[in-house]
């Protein structure tokens, strides 16, 4: 697994193994923040940034932990690193873009509990990616998350004009939409080598 090229990893995490639609990572923000295009895109960018930071730190941490043979501390240290980088993003956003900060609301601190971020760190360890591969993996994952979020938000904006039965409205509708989106992303399967 560990000798895939960087480009291959990027394309396959972006499309064929899209984090949200094929691997079910990061569904909470995917369903929560995808109501409007204006918040979906910044949310995607913020998450991508956190992913990159987390992936870099996880790579360094993993070297350190395996050197000292402290593998059982891996999960705990990863989550602490992620929590701190989310804090960093939160402070930066609050300073430079208060409007966006308010729009993202509760979902910003919730990036900490976004499985996609921890997923990046865990999967790159499990697959024994090297430094550049990890970087490509996390960037592809983040870009894929942003892509899915933006597509979903556009769909949901269009749906506001549609006449939907009251019973179906809400989460059930979003899930069925996500299912259709995921079905279309399956068309990319095999792109980038698959298994």
């Amino acid at each position, binding site marked *: 697994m560990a000798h895939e090229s960087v480009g291959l990893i990027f394309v396959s995490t972006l499309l064929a193994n899209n984090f949200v639609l094929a691997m079910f990572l990061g569904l*909470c923000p995917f369903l929560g923040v995808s109501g409007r295009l204006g918040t979906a895109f910044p949310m995607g960018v913020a998450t991508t940034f956190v992913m990159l930071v987390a992936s870099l730190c996880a790579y360094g941490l993993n070297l350190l932990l395996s050197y000292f043979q402290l593998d059982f501390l891996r999960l705990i240290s990863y989550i*602490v690193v992620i*929590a701190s980088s989310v804090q960093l993003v939160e402070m930066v956003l609050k300073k430079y873009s208060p409007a966006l900060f308010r729009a993202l609301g509760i979902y910003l601190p919730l990036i900490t509990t976004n499985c996609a*971020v921890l*997923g990046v760190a865990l999967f790159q360890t499990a697959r024994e990616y090297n430094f550049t591969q990890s970087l490509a993996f996390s960037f592809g994952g983040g870009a894929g998350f942003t892509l899915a979020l933006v597509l979903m938000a556009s769909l949901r904006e269009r749906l506001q004009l549609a006449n939907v039965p009251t019973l179906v409205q809400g989460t059930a509708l979003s899930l069925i939409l*996500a299912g259709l989106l*995921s079905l279309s992303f*399956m068309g990319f399967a095999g792109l980038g080598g698959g298994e």
Partner: protein
Amino acid sequence: MSLPEQADDSITLDTFLEGVWRQNPVFVMVLGMCPTLAVTVSAINALSMGVATTFVLVSSCLLISMIRNLVPKEVRIATYIVIIATFVTLVDYLIQAVSLKLYEALGAFIQLIVVNCIILGRAEAHASKHPPLKSVINALGMGVGFTIGLFALGGTREILGAGNLFGISLFGEHFQPWVVMVLPPGGFFVLGGWLLLFALLRSKPATEGGH
């Protein structure tokens, strides 16, 4: 729903049933979606994931509730998440020791229990404000509710997608498996279907004035 500081400490049946039915984490609150959809390709995977999550939920709620008056308010989330991560590491090693096959089937999703919103949500909303016994009962209810939800999903997907339940063939060999149901889109469709069913069930008593 914000609970007052001086919350009612009496334990009623509702403490347990809240998580099973009224606030079922899968069907009503739609929390913890990632493990819900990712591991429910078969009934047995779903059931083991539910049990593992319940264990982490109950033990971390017990510990958090016991130290709730010692932890400063500013660092509580960080404390909770470290406690949860500790228990998850425990479960991770436990499953690895008991069944390697199951460990490979669930993969990274065991470790991803850490970021399951249900656990942090319970810790913050309930365990940090109530005495240990009550939190444990409430957490147990939530865990049971989550397991039921996972099982409903996993069972449906296994029956439709493979024609099996717990690996036992149900329909004979002429059944054409509905393969899409065990693939990622099927997860979304089945959960959407269950949510619709629940919305339908709840909309009926509402017109009759039930709760």
